[in-house]
């Protein structure tokens, strides 16, 4: 398998023939132990629909294909973050570990949120000026065969996480104020966004618990009323009404939590993961910087006979670093734009949905109130 050749090919490709906004991850079905996602999209040219089924491994393959290690400029790209793998337990229930790992993405019915996160991922890749040109994306979206089988070797992502000692380079002083700034800012924002997302998750979980508790109360009351005969008809009616009220309350929390998950929750989660992606990119650049500075030192110290080779190495590194830096600069700008846009979309649709829910529930409450006031006492 000639990976480099293929990458070169894709890079030279004329770009994606699929409309980015049409990419949809519709549903996830459990095929034995594996989740299978059905992905639909439309051709840019004729609007023809394409539908494929993909596993998480296919997404991983895409992510690794996007990053070609021998393409130095790509080191400066902020790769759209692929969500961590969702492992379904046999009871198709979300356990605490998954919840901790995935946060919001583990919530929602039938992996709905997770699908949306994958969809956002694909869209972000498709919208990326450089990554969208990669044939791997087109393959994933259109090829009927599963590309994941041509297993790519572990890419930079895995390697990065393994190399822990390089973490110390994170605090390395940057030569460029822009990047130093961005790095500081990023680590601050990453932490804050992560915490905010977690706390929002707590809010949503509390809402879900409240929804369950309200449901429980509602059915308890109903059960009670059913047990009591019509001996005290007026009281039974009141209880029945109370049960309905709590059902509405349950619906309120349920809806509110759903809205929270599908809009702001997802938005914050993406935000958080994107910031991690930026951090990784910045880190890659920092690593390169450290490498370059080391090369500089070596060149200075090198004896005359080795100076030539050293300089050559240094020059290569410098060229790589410069290319990477200029790419990174672009990417950071682009990232901030899309980040704000994404958060805006999340906030606006969140607000709209919550407003709708609040209005709907308020109408239900006033219906209940009216009905209650008409209830007979005797």
């Amino acid at each position, binding site marked *: 398998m000639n990976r480099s050749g293929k990458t070169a090919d894709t890079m030279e490709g004329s770009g994606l023939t699929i409309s980015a906004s049409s990419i949809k991850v519709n549903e996830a079905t459990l095929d034995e132990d594996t989740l299978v996602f059905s992905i639909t999209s439309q051709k840019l040219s004729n609007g023809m629909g394409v539908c494929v089924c993909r596993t998480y491994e296919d997404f991983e393959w895409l992510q690794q294909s996007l990053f070609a290690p021998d393409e130095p400029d790509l080191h400066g790209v902020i790769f759209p973050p692929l969500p961590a793998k969702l492992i379904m337990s046999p009871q198709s229930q979300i356990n605490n570990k998954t919840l901790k790992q995935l946060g919001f993405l583990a919530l929602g019915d039938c992996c709905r949120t997770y699908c949306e996160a994958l969809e956002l991922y694909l869209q972000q890749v498709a919208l990326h000026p450089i990554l969208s040109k990669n044939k791997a994306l087109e393959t994933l979206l259109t090829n009927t065969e599963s590309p994941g089988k041509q297993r790519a070797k572990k890419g930079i992502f895995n390697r990065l996480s393994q190399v822990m000692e390089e973490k110390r380079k994170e605090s390395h002083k940057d030569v460029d104020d822009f990047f130093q700034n961005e790095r500081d800012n990023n680590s601050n924002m990453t932490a804050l966004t992560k915490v*905010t997302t977690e706390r929002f998750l707590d809010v949503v979980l509390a809402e879900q618990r*409240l929804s369950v*508790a309200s449901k429980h109360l509602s059915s308890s009351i109903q059960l009670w009323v059913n047990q*009591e005969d019509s001996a005290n008809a007026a009281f039974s009616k009141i209880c029945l009404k109370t049960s309905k*009220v709590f059902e509405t309350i349950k619906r309120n929390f349920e809806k509110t939590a759903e809205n929270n998950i599908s809009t702001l929750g997802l938005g914050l989660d993406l935000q958080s993961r994107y910031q991690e992606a930026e951090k990784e990119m910045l880190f890659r650049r920092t690593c390169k910087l450290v490498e370059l500075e080391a090369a500089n030192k070596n060149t200075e110290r090198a004896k005359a006979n080795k100076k030539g080779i050293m300089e050559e190495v240094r020059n290569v590194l410098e060229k790589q670093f410069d290319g990477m830096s200029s790419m990174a600069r672009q990417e950071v700008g682009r990232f901030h734009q899309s980040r704000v846009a994404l*958060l*805006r979309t999340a*906030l606006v649709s969140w607000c709209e949905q*919550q407003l709708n829910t609040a209005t709907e529930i308020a109408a239900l409450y006033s219906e209940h109130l009216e009905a209650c006031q008409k209830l007979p*006492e005797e």
Partner: protein
Amino acid sequence: MKMAASSERSPPPFPDAEDQESEPALRDEDSDEGADIFLGTNPLEAMADSTFSASDVLSDLPNDLLGEPPSAVFGDPLSNISKQESTSNPAKQSSKLPSDVPCDIFDPLHGTGMEPKDDGKNASLIDIVINPVTSAKDNLPVDDLLSQPEIDIPAKTKTEQPAELRSEERPKDEPLSVASSKPKKDLFEDSPEDLFSELPKTKAKTKPQMDLFGDSSPDLFMDAKAAADTGPGRNAPADLFSEESVATTTSKSAKSNISANSIVTANSKANGVHSDEEEQDIFAEATVELSLDSPHNNRKTLDTTKPSEPASSLSAAAGSSKAQAKTLEELEEEESEDKFELNISITNPEKVGDGMNAYMAYKVSTQTTLPMFRSKTFTVRRRFSDFLGLYEKLSEKHSQNGYIVPPPPEKSLLGMTKVKVGKDDPSSGEFVERRRASLERYLQRVVCHPSLLQDPDVREFLEREELPRAVNTQALSGAGFLKMINKATDAVSKMTIKMNESDVWFEEKLQEVESEDQQLRKLHAVVDSLVSHRKELSVNTAVFAKSVAMLGSSEDNTALSRALSQLAELEDKIEQLHQEQAGNDFFVFTELLADYIRLLGAVRGSFDQRMKSWQRWQDAQTTLQKKREAEAKLLWANKPDKLQQAKDEIAEWEGKVTQYEREFERVSATVRKEVIRFEKEKARDFKKQIIKYLESLLQSQQQLIKYWEAFLPEAKAIA
């Protein structure tokens, strides 16, 4: 129905009768007042009292319940009965019963002003009395011996509880008298002695009449009894007497004793039957009755004085038993027409004192248009133990009769300690508010109860500036209180097994109450978890808001930063809403359910009282059976010397059985009425609360809509 009616006869109903009466009494002032007078003047009509008290009670009940104006009462057959009874004790008996004794008998008595010592008259009267009683008791063999014991049964049973009764009834006179015309007010508030002395002035005309009856009727009674009771059977009453006489050392009883004594002696001579011992007994009973019956007599007197033609109403009396039956049924239906013009609020909880001796005092404000109160608005300060004390007093008086006395909130050592120690702990503030609201609901429930509202202790609690410090409220504190309820519950369930329930209604109701209790407890737990989840959500929202605020301040994008800080504010406001809603959940539902769990305890308590009453009746029946067997053995063994004693004992126990059965039926009727009332109150209460809750939900939802609407443009403004 006659049974039910007569069951009202026994002493415990008296307070009921009082209570029932007092509402109409407000309108019907004269009648009460007259009645009171009667009591004073006619202390000796022991026998008559015991018999007519039944109709007395009945006539009162329907009035209240049906809400008929008191004027109508007199046209009512029921009231007629009581009227007749009161005016002409022996005559009443005859009129009520199918026996042929002419109603006219009554009139002659009146007119002639029969002398107490007129033996001839007495003799005839005795017959009259005996006959009605026997015929009233259809189920008993018509036998002189039996009928006579019956006569003394009422008397005896009365003597069993006089100590309590007296203590209750004397204060009872107070509200009545206050409501009624002024001049007599003093009389009633004072000791009965005053009544006695002042009566001649106020009701000079009625008095002589009363005296006639008062004198004559005891005579009748005693004679009858004396004839029946010879020898060992008398021991029990004698004991009673000794107890009672100690308790009844008022000058009133002393006076009546004297008069009774003389009469008795006269009679006994005439009859030649009595021994000295018997006389003593008779005497004792007469005195006891006097003190017990006084309130009732009082009420009756009014009847005599006001309508003034007792004879005319005699004819109506025949239909009375039917009417009574009907009214008892109607009790259940129509009972809730009480419209009290009474608002009670508890405000300004205030810590009084320092350290561990500190306590919370609450301002109890009453607004009312009820004439039984001295003014329209008044305010007193009460502490928690005063509320407990009120409950204890009410419970002591009314529980045994099958009333559902609303229980107060439990004592909370933990909560109160926090209040005492803590400075500005928010949980202690919450505790105080919770306690305040809980006490308010408690008091409102008490005054909503038409009978309890009439209790002088309730009025005193609301009106009197300084209450004597309540003691012994320890028993009610926290766990102790629950234990008490649980104990009652255990007792009930134990008895249920033994009790062969004759009334399906009670059987079903008790089951209902028990399952409801369980359901309520479950619901309480669910609501509790709901509240804690709501609190959790509130906390989480606050934390999230803080995070968002920090995120916003670190954000470089100006518009996003602004939007985020707006979002933080929004979340803060939402947090407030959650907090308020948690409070609503708690105060509306948790507390409502807790109240009703306590109230169901009280409901079970009233079932328990009914069981106890039943048990007593059954025990008496068993004893009676044994006595009969003993008599049969004696007959067999041909031991005539002991036979008379056995017969006496049988007679005594037959009386007891009847008495207890009536008591049981009376308690049953009260419990039934109370449970129906309770259920109506419950429906009303829950409806009120759910409406209140929905209003709060709607309000907070509307607030939420406003918040979202305000935030939307901010979100859209992000560039």
